[in-house]
């Protein structure tokens, strides 16, 4: 269903062209280097990126801990899986969590999150319409509005900005990390990249490889929800989570 609302595209573009003193469509001149890059060029860059990420692994994680703390994530790093699991259990107990929602991401094959939630007597829901549980969309949404905590993995984690990046898709609702007042993100070391540019290179590659689709949404999360709209006074948790926790497995 495509309605024509407003000015037809050709007329609109013609008037823009007129403002630029041109009468016919033309390619950018001089050409823009990024749009000239081929998949092979980008793959070469990806190779360089991967090689860069192979070294200084420990320093990179430490740098992430620092930058994420600077944006007010509560960050903890556990090279040992059992320690991570027991930390998460303590955290959930301290927070007094009664209802939890989680995404369905591969990280939860490593962390036995359901067992853990179950043992603590926390009522939990997996938000995955095609997975086990089969909540209706309305039910799933209500769970995410009411939950005390939302637990997700991460798709990328950016050292430069201390951001967890998520790509909403099947098994990863947009609201798990947004609806509840607390968000817990579990980060696996292979998701860590150095800069924003690294993420955009990888997403751009994904776009080209998937025939021009990189998924509907991409979200960078850098700390809690904040506002300073009244007298420049910082308040956290205005519409999104007021508390965010990052657990790094490595």
């Amino acid at each position, binding site marked *: 269903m495509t309605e024509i609302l407003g000015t037809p595209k050709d007329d609109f573009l013609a008037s823009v062209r007129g403002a630029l003193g041109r009468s016919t*469509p033309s390619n950018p001149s001089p050409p823009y280097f990024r749009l000239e890059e081929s998949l092979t060029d980008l793959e070469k860059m990806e190779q360089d990126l991967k090689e860069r990420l192979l070294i200084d692994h420990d320093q990179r994680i430490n740098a992430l801990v620092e930058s994420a703390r600077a944006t007010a994530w509560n960050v903890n790093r556990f090279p040992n899986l059992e320690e991570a699991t027991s930390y998460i259990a303590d955290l959930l107990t301290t927070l007094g969590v009664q209802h939890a929602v989680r995404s369905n991401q591969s990280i939860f094959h490593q962390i036995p999150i359901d067992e853990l939630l179950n043992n603590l007597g926390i009522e939990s829901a997996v938000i995955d319409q095609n997975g086990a549980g089969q909540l209706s969309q309305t039910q799933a949404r209500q769970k995410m509005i009411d939950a005390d905590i939302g637990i997700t993995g991460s798709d990328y984690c950016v050292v430069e900005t201390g951001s967890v990046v998520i790509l909403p898709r099947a098994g990863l609702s947009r609201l798990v990390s947004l609806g509840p007042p607390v968000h817990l993100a579990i980060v696996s070391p292979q998701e860590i990249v150095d800069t924003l540019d690294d993420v955009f290179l990888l997403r751009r590659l994904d776009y080209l490889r998937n025939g021009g689709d990189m998924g509907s949404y991409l979200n960078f999360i850098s700390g809690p929800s904040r506002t300073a709209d009244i007298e420049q006074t910082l308040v956290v948790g205005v519409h999104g989570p007021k508390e965010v926790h990052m657990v790094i497995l490595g």
Partner: protein
Amino acid sequence: MPEVKTQAFRNSSETALKNTQLQQALKRAGTGFDGARRQAIDSVGADNWELWRDEARKIKIHALENLDYYLDLLEQKVTENGGEVHFAKDSEEANLIVSQIAKSRNVQIATKSKSMVSEELDLNKVLEKSGVEVYETDLGEYIIQLAEETPSHLVAPALHKTKEEVALLLHEKLQVPILDDIEDMARVARDVLRDKFFNADMGISGANFLIAETGSLVIITNEGNGRLCTSAPRIHVGITGMEKVIPSLQDLGLFLRLLPRSATGQHLTSYVSIVNGPKRETDEDGPSEFHLVLVDNGRSRMLADPELREALYCIRCGACLNICPVYQKVGGHSYGWVYPGPIGAIVSPELVGLKRASDLPFASSLCGACKDACPIKINIPRMLLHQRHKLSESTDVSERNIGLTGRLAAKFTGHILQHPKQLSITRSIIRLIQLPLSNKGTLKKTSLPILSRWTKNRDMKVIAPKSFRSIWQTELYKDKD
């Protein structure tokens, strides 16, 4: 379009100077934002910052020079992503597009994240007229919506309000007790709006950037309202100026480094959301429809004027407001329309018509601080001078803001400054005339009504008894010998 009061700058700013609450609010905001910006720049190093600014400016120059190409590409890619693009030549058309989408899809409630373009269009009013309940969800925007005002700052729309005023407003409009704690005030807004987010049929957002090659809309927010508006409702409408497009997703990193640092001093806002069309079939949630409304509304006029094109490079960070000595004293509302501060003084006259905003190019001391603070190095003072020139030389006599006397005086001065002999004679004549009018080297305040606009707040120096030229010739040059 919202009411245009740009022609009243002189009066509004005088009133603003006497408004003690406003002065208190402005003083508090004062150097806070700008201090944070400077700190953020220091932490990345001034050299890096300069490189980023130059790089970003280059990209903007290129994108605007080829705007037709990039808009075409953007439209193709958004469509491939499953979204729809609508083009609006002016505000009426833009408003009609959004209200038609709302009407045909039976939209009852719309939630909005911050969008300056929607303020420019007065979109809320039009939607409300067609029966849609519209809720601003950015805390600052929500406050001014309750107060039925317009934003006074690009980044902090309610900057002009003290917390006492906000407390009173919430009390009157929402029947809550008069609160003292800012956190409690924010919680009141959260509670009201949370319900709206999840019951809204339509989420409306602006765009900080549009990415041509991937058909993406980028919004950067701190509160999470932008994420909710683009995640919870069944329809998402992005509405923005056509100048926001940049070529590649890989250009975005650079702009994300510049914008939050320039705006609030943050390295990055809490959230950056990149929307690539509606939800995909297997997605858990998200709007099933995505519309992008691209607005011209006077922008092509600025694009066509090589002197003013660079105003379209603006990324709306507000750094020029935060550093401007005029804005700091008169506040955003004095500028009389949607866009305040130095950049507003350029954009508003172009969008509402120079004739109706003839004071704005003069709402500046031309100190140039705005240009230095601008992350895209936009030369605001140069454009203000250009507009002043346009105003004085306009062929449309009613547009000229300078009367015949002023024009003749300027022409005369221009002439004699080019002719040293005539200058010397004129000087001698003025020295004679000014004798009875002067007092200790300055002109008496009441002596020349024609200069009253100058002498009201400042002293007018008389012409010195001896010119530098004659001092040089008779004394200095001789001494050298």
